[in-house]
């Protein structure tokens, strides 16, 4: 960390901040980051372009239930006789978009709460963190189930559920990082020169804690996809007849023994994308840990 050499020189950590921003680039030195990114891009491409490539309408009946591969249905049909390939190509959008939005909401709000708690006076910190503890008393899935009971499963609610479940976890990470920065010279300088609270939080501290927050985002995104897929599977997320990987695993499970592809295809997509994100996150974590702090989970 740079030390101020004169009274008029701001003890900024511009270099440090830039270094943090270069994190993604540096993490590319690791094979696992590149592998992970390739996996994520692959699945994301299926989710984004799949609906245009699908040979059939995902809701159309093209054959008998669980019929094997044929000219009309290249990978066979699903539990109701719809084209498996078309449903697979159509089924990535909902789960990935909801997971992503939920993660953005959760990590975003958690960062705000954590920053405020970590930087502020004791009383604000106490109140915010006790609230966070309260939410953490439930396992995330229980909180999600409780909220879905009340509101019913609609897409906006699912985003909110993921966001609310993750907010307290991110808040802890952001708070721990903010506490480390609070006492540093550049924050003291900003305080002394009378910058506003908002500016200190967002323009000074935030750029310097991007490393742990990026890792946190990756971890949460993996968990969000898992949570969404589980809720879909349990019939509490995206509702049939929408084509969705989680829903597909659930509705095709009776055919697992004789037409396993109907289940294994969406399973593979979820496995590949979650492992991919985890590999990228791990690479970023390694790149960050090489610098100033160890990044856990």
């Amino acid at each position, binding site marked *: 960390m740079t030390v101020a050499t004169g009274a008029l020189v701001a003890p900024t950590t511009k270099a440090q901040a830039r270094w943090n921003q270069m994190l993604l680039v540096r993490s590319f030195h690791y094979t696992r980051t590149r592998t992970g990114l390739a996996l994520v891009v692959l699945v994301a491409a299926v989710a984004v372009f799949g609906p245009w490539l699908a040979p059939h309408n995902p809701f159309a009946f093209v054959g008998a239930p669980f019929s094997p591969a044929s000219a009309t249905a290249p990978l066979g049909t699903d539990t109701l006789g719809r084209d498996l390939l078309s449903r697979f190509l159509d089924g990535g959008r909902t789960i990935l978009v909801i997971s992503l939005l939920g993660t953005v909401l959760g990590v975003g709000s958690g960062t705000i709460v954590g920053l405020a708690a970590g930087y502020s006076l004791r009383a604000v910190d106490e109140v915010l963190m006790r609230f966070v503890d309260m939410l953490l*008393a*439930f*396992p995330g899935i229980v909180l999600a189930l409780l909220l879905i*009971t*009340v509101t019913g499963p609609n897409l906006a609610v699912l985003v909110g559920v993921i966001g609310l479940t993750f907010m307290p976890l991110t808040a802890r990470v952001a708070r721990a990082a903010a506490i480390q920065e609070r006492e540093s010279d550049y924050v003291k300088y900003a305080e002394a020169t009378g910058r506003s609270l908002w500016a200190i939080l967002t323009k000074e501290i935030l750029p310097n804690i991007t490393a742990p927050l990026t890792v946190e985002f990756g971890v949460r995104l993996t968990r969000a996809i898992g949570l969404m*897929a589980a809720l879909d599977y349990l019939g509490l997320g995206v509702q049939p007849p929408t084509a969705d990987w989680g829903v597909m695993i659930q509705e095709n499970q009776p055919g697992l023994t004789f037409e396993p592809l109907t289940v294994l295809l969406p399973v593979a997509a979820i496995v590949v994308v979650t492992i991919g994100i985890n590999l990228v996150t791990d690479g970023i974590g390694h790149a960050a840990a090489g610098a100033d702090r160890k990044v856990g*989970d």
Partner: protein
Amino acid sequence: MPMVIRIVARRLAVGLLILWATSVIVFVCIHVLPGDAAETILGKQSNPYMLRVLRQELGLSKPLLTQYINWLDNLVTLNWGKSLVSSLSVASITGSAAENTAILTGFTMIVLTPLAIVLGAVTATKSGKLWDNIASLVMLCLNAIPDFVVAIILIYFLAANVAHLFPAASLVTPGTSIFSQLVVTVLPTATLVLVLLPYPTRMVRASMIEVLQSDYIMMARLKGMPERRVIMRHALRNAMGPMVQACGLTLLFLSGGVIIVEAVFNYPGLGETLITAVNQRDIPVIQVIVVLVAAACVLINLISDLVVLAVTPKLRARL
């Protein structure tokens, strides 16, 4: 000793406070958010008359604070009412389910703990070598895959397609003990162990690596003590603290993971009951299970804090 008693008392008080707070969250969720319990129960078939009668019956027309106090009173005195779907008492439904979940949780921890310690210790001694790298990559993947997907993969390989070793669903005759058909617990336990393994293993590995670099380990080695004995007697023992903490956290993850895994295998525990209740909007059952799970989490936190305190004297001063 009074110091220890004070710490325990404080932890207990915090635990109770959190438990009370969760009761407020549950109450608020069920009673205040749009669409009250009566509307939720009646669903789309509701008409104003039915709504009014049901609201009266549920006490929804009373002031909110009175409602909360009545509700809390019933909860604390175990007067949990009846399920809206089966009209069985909630206490009897949750009682047997809690027992089954406790059995599954117990099995998982019995398999998981020694496995994590051995894997963590072995990879720590081989830190940076091929096997350590392979293990860490496998853990990374296991950590990423959602729990119910692991369950489906296990069903594919061990129950349905490749081999037919274990039942894919837990068909337990109601009223009989799970102990008479332990085979149904194999796949749920295996799923939970696989899903939870990465975290405690990494904790053990990290704390072992730290201990192995300490002076007293070097001393023991310089004395000419066999490496096996160095690891077993000195290193492992001193790495205990973080391990206990990891166990506590793993139990917390378990309390969430068990819910989904039970639902996949139709294992008749709290999780499966909760999911069914949520699908049927069976509010009396939902609220009791949610509070029970929260209570279990508070208890786990408390116990693991106290055990950590007991095994690491250094920490006591800091509280």
